[in-house]
C-alpha cells in the first residue's frame, strides 16, 4: 500500500466507525415552542432507543408544563398538586419566557401525549402527541 493510500484508508475507517456509532446512539434534538398556550408542533415522530433532547421554548409570559407519558401517567397528574417539576426528565416545568431542555430515550414503540397540566391549560388545548417508531 502506498504512503498516500494508507492514511486515506485509515481516515475512511475512522469515519465509518464514527458514523456507525452516531446512528446507534447520538442524541437527536426536537424543538417545541409554546406560544399563546399552545404547543408547536403538536405531532412528533421519534425513533425507538435513541436519546431525544427536547428544547422547550416558552414564549409566553406565563408558566407552563411539559409532561409526557401514557394515559395513566396523565390521569395521575390531572389530579396532582405538584407545584413544579424538573427532577424527572419527562416532567418539566418551563417558567415564563424561558427555555428548558430535557433528554429522554423511548424504549417502547407507541404513541404518548405531552400535556400541560396547569389548571385549565389542557382544556385550553395544550396537548401534543409523540409517536415512537419500531
Amino acid at each position, binding site marked *: 500500500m502506498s504512503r498516500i493510500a494508507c492514511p486515506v484508508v485509515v481516515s475512511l475507517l475512522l469515519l465509518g466507525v464514527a458514523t456507525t456509532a452516531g446512528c446507534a446512539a447520538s442524541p437527536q434534538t426536537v424543538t417545541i415552542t409554546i406560544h399563546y*398556550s399552545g404547543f408547536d408542533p403538536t405531532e412528533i415522530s421519534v425513533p425507538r432507543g435513541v436519546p431525544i433532547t427536547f428544547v422547550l421554548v416558552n414564549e409566553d409570559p406565563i408558566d407552563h408544563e411539559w409532561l409526557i407519558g401514557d394515559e395513566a401517567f396523565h390521569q395521575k397528574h390531572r389530579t396532582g398538586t405538584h407545584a413544579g417539576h424538573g427532577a424527572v426528565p419527562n416532567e418539566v416545568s418551563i417558567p415564563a*419566557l424561558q427555555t428548558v431542555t430535557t433528554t429522554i430515550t423511548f424504549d417502547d414503540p407507541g404513541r404518548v401525549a405531552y400535556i400541560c397540566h396547569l389548571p385549565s391549560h389542557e382544556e385550553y388545548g395544550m396537548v401534543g402527541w409523540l409517536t415512537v417508531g419500531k
Partner: protein
Amino acid sequence: MRRPWRPFLAATAALLITAAPALACGGLIGPNGAVNLLRTTTFAGYHDGVEHYVTAFQFAGGGGAFGSITPLPDIPSKVERGGDWTLQRLILETDPPAFEAFRTLGGVEAAAADEAEVLLETTIDALDITILRGGGDEVGLWAKNHGFRLPPDAPEVLDFYADRSPIFMAAAFDADAAAARGQAVGDGTPVHLTIPTDNPWVPLRILGLGKSSAETVQADVYLLTDDKPAMLPNPEAFLEANGLLLDHSAPATEPLLTDLRSDVGMEWVPDDAWLTKVVIDSPADALDFDLAIDASGAGNPSPVDAGYAPFSGNPLPRSPIAVYLLLMAVAIVAVPVALARVARRGPFAGPPAAA
C-alpha cells in the same frame, strides 16, 4: 346638599349589590387561576376630551388575595376612589326595581422581556392599584412576579390589548384586609380613573379572560357622552350586534345628571348629555372584540379601537347581505304562491269542513 332620594337609593343599592347585577370588575383571578366574575357594571363618561371610567370591585367573602387586570385606552391622569352612588344611580335610572323587591332588603433561561413599567401606584380601601405600561409579555411577567396566576388565554389577550394601547390597570384585592376593614360581603369598592384620550373605548374581550367557551359573559356598560355616540359593534344593527343589546339610549334626564354631579369626583358631568346602556350577553369565546365609541358626532367609530381588521384577523361585522338576499328570494317565491292559494280558495274561504 342632602337629597331626598338618598336613603331610598342607599337601600336599593344594597339590594342591587347582592341581587342580579352584582357590581364587580372583570378578570378576577384567584390563586388557583379561577375567575370570580359575576356580572360587571362599568361606566365610561366622555366630556371635553377626557374619559371618566368608573368600575367597582366587589368583596365576595373568603380570604386570600385576588386580582384584576383592565386594559386602558391611555395613561390616567388620576386614579381615585369612585363616588358612592354613581353606578347604583345609573342602574336605578335604567332598571328601576320592582316594588316587591323592598321586602327582601337586608340580605344583602433568562427572561426575554423585562417587567412592565410602573406608572402609578395607589391604594383604595383594600385594593392595591398599579398602572402599568408595557407589551403583553412585560405586563404578563409583572403579573406573574406579583402573585397573579393568569389563565392560559392571557398571553393572547394581553397582546390583543398591548398592540393598541400598552396601558393596563392591575388591581390586587386583599380579601383578608377587606375583612379586617369591616367590609361586608357584597360591599363594592368603586374606582374612578380620569383618562385624557381622543375617544373612549370600553374593553370587553378582557371580560372573557379565563372563561371556557361554554360560559357566558354578562355585563352592563353605561356611557355618558355629549351627543348620541356611534358604536362598533353597533348594538342596534340587525345581526351585527355580536351579543350586544342596546338597552337604553336617550338624552340623560336632569335629575340623573344632577345626582351624578353630586357624587364624589363627578363634578365634570355636563348640563346636557346622552345616556346609553349596552347589555353584553355573549358566549365567552365569541366576545373577541371591544366596544369602540365615536363621541364626536362624526359617526365613525374606529375598527382598530374595537379590535377588528386590519388591526387583527378578526373581521369587521358587516350587514348580512346573504341573509337579506335569502329573505328576498323567499319573499319572491312565497308571495306569489300564497296569492295563488288565496285566489284558488277565494277571499273568504273558511277552514275545511270536518268529515
